């Protein structure tokens, strides 16, 4: 195991770009390599050592043996762990955009908040964010219809708008709240939101599952109330409790499922919501 620690010396107003400092690139690097490396800032490159003290411990045979520790405010460091295939990155502080974008393996832990596009087009690996993240968490590149295809993102705080846009696999868990249009254009995979959702989750979704444990603001017309289910198994994972299951987005013959917690979203059930203990299913209620 090779531990490379980046201790921040100073911050920069213009963001540093870390796309060439993946474990895949630096597992063979010695101290001198870091000393000679110019990190892209805007249209120029500046010595990395102006911004960071680098400490290296141990040896690595492959990227998987690398543990990168970033200490400091990385709020202006873009592309941390972008396109990485193995190893581990621990960021102690906020991180800028595109953390873990297009990563195929390895693990990233951010102890802080993350800007937009966290885990964009992730294909594998694990990304954990202890704080909040902004828009387009686990989304796709502009115009790309294949978003995140694998791996897992865990956001302990809130996620911004359009979380899991074009999700085509993998799993996003948000322990806090989500803003509008979570899972828009989604085709596969699972988004689990433990907090509340502002409005319109699953717009234009083709397939996949969205589970909302909190309260949903406004639902799209494209979603058809399907059933109230108890302890469902979704994407190979069992969930406890009662959920209202919708299918959508019907506007494009979508077969996606949206599960809303039946207790928090009782208002969505209308009259049935007042009697749901008396019936085993909404079908039974409707038939009466």
């Amino acid at each position: 195991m090779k531990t490379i620690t980046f201790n921040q010396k100073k911050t920069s107003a213009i963001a540093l770009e870390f796309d060439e400092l993946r474990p895949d690139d630096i597992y063979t690097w010695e101290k001198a390599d870091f000393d000679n490396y110019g990190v892209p800032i805007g249209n120029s490159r500046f010595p990395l050592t102006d911004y960071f003290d680098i400490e290296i411990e141990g040896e690595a045979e492959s990227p998987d043996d690398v543990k990168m520790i970033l200490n400091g405010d990385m709020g202006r460091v873009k592309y941390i762990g972008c396109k990485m295939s193995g190893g581990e990155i621990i960021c102690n502080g906020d991180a800028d955009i595109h953390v873990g974008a297009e990563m195929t393996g390895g693990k990233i832990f951010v102890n802080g908040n993350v800007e937009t596009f966290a885990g964009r087009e992730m294909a594998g690996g694990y990304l954990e964010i202890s704080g909040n993240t902004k828009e387009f968490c686990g989304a796709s590149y502009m115009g790309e219809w294949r978003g995140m295809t694998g791996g897992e993102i865990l956001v302990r705080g809130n996620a911004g708008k359009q979380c899991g846009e074009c999700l085509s696999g993998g799993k996003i868990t948000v322990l806090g709240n989500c803003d509008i249009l979570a899972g828009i254009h989604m085709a596969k995979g699972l988004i689990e939101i433990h907090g509340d959702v502002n409005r319109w989750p699953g717009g234009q979704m083709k397939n996949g599952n969205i589970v909302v444990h909190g309260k949903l603001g406004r639902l799209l017309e494209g979603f058809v109330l399907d059933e109230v289910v108890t302890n469902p198994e979704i994407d190979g994972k069992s969930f406890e409790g009662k959920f209202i299951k919708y299918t959508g987005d019907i506007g494009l013959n979508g077969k996606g499922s949206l599960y809303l917690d039946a207790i928090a979203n009782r208002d969505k059930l209308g009259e049935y919501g007042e009697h749901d203990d008396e019936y085993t299913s909404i079908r039974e209620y409707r038939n009466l």
Partner: protein
Amino acid sequence: MHYANTYLEKPVVPDVKINKEGSVDVLKCMLNTGSDIYQGACKKRGSTLKEEYKNASGTCYMDPRDMEKLGVNNWDTVLVKTDWGEVVVSAAASRDAPHEGQVFICKGPWANTVVSAETYCCIDPTYKGIHCTVEKTDKKVLLMADLMRKNYKKWVDEDDDEVLENMPSLGELPVFKRKEQED
């Protein structure tokens, strides 16, 4: 030389006569910004320093019912506040009424003061659909140059908005040092 004239001191707005005091001090509204023909014509002609621009762009178009609630008449001044700032603009009856609860300020430095710079990663700032409050005020609407000076303070050392508002106006014509002045 005789030029065709396209100047128009003030946009044409519907007549409103409100004689009563308003029923509320602060009105909660939804703010939209955008362009209209008066603002567009004045801006692109280049008359941005003029009164005309102030009237075309620095005007809050309101539903007459909202004006009645506040007790403001056409071309009275109001203070519009949002989470992003506050600005003094004229009030005028909207040609597109009824739209109770919505106010409209044409794009321009006045509207910019109160709109949100948040793009939500979608390129555009949020110029429309912003929660705001509107209240009556005695302050005057600043001319463009004065407003820019107050808002951005690029060339003044003063920080106090009160002081900046009451500084001598930069006027309706360009102010710069000409070459011949030096000689």
